[in-house]
């Protein structure tokens, strides 16, 4: 590992632990680029069509909002964690449109932490993530899980010499 700090492991994720997301502006160009590749519906690729829709403007695909949330999770804790992916998402609510120019931030917190039944080296940590816009309105609410190693794996091996 190049990092001097050992990776966070399962024990670092008690219920209630919170991580804050850095702010991020969502531009019209990135909304259109994502939508052209994956979700080319008119309200995601065209300003006028977005304004005419119930979303009220050029708006990000819900999958784009989800991907942005994922990047926020990476930047706020996953990059420094012995993380082994996710088994899934219990629920995702796209509560409000994400419009071009919106500034997103938010946080996630641990709601459950348990050991994996099938993999003794893994803990399963369930989080609720909330993504908010510049008016403090929730745009996405997500109940998801991460698989996190109980020891640091390679990082721990290096630390032990």
């Amino acid at each position: 590992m190049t990092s001097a700090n050992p990776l966070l492991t399962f024990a670092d994720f008690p219920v209630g632990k919170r991580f804050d997301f850095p702010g991020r502006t969502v531009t019209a160009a990135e909304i259109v680029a994502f939508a052209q590749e994956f979700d080319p519906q008119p309200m995601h690729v065209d300003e006028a069509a977005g304004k005419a829709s119930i979303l009220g403007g050029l708006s990000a695909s819900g999958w784009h909002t989800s991907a942005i949330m994922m990047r926020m999770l990476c930047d706020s804790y996953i990059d420094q964690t012995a993380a082994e992916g996710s088994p899934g998402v219990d629920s995702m609510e796209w509560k409000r449109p994400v419009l071009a120019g919106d500034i997103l931030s938010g946080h996630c917190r641990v709601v459950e932490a348990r050991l994996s039944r099938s993999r003794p080296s893994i803990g399963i940590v369930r989080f609720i993530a909330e993504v908010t816009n510049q008016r403090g309105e929730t745009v996405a609410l997500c109940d998801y899980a991460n698989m996190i190693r109980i020891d640091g794996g390679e990082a721990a091996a290096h630390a032990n010499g």
Partner: protein
Amino acid sequence: MRMAELYPQNERLVLGSHHFAAEDIIRFARKFDPQPFHLDAEAAKQSLFGGLCASGWHTCAGWMKTFVAFWAAECQRLKQDGITPPELGPSPGFRNLRWFKPVFAGDTIAYTVTLLSSRQSASHPGRLINTMLCEGTNQHGEPVVRFESTVLEFI
């Protein structure tokens, strides 16, 4: 016509397939999910997944891509048959998403959709709320993803 009139409940519709090339997996991951097993084949060998694999969100975006193409073709087909296509709106979200297996570089995922239920919105009388089961299967016939998506329909 309404979705529920056109597509029988619990009948699986084939949407199409999406190929996950290594460079596309890495490009998506650099932007949205820069974990080692989505970025680097060597690092991925050390992970639980055992090989370079797509972000789960990339796998979901692949479902959306095939659905949008399918739906555009369906609207065309219905119009040719003199049927007014259902007017679908945005999705308020999804539930019960499971990533069963990694989508590895080189995999091709076949996606399907199944209408599970259609009900009137309690708050908006002009809207139906459709629940659809969305699934993806790899070239070996193994399920890789499933989720239950909610989609508005204007009536």
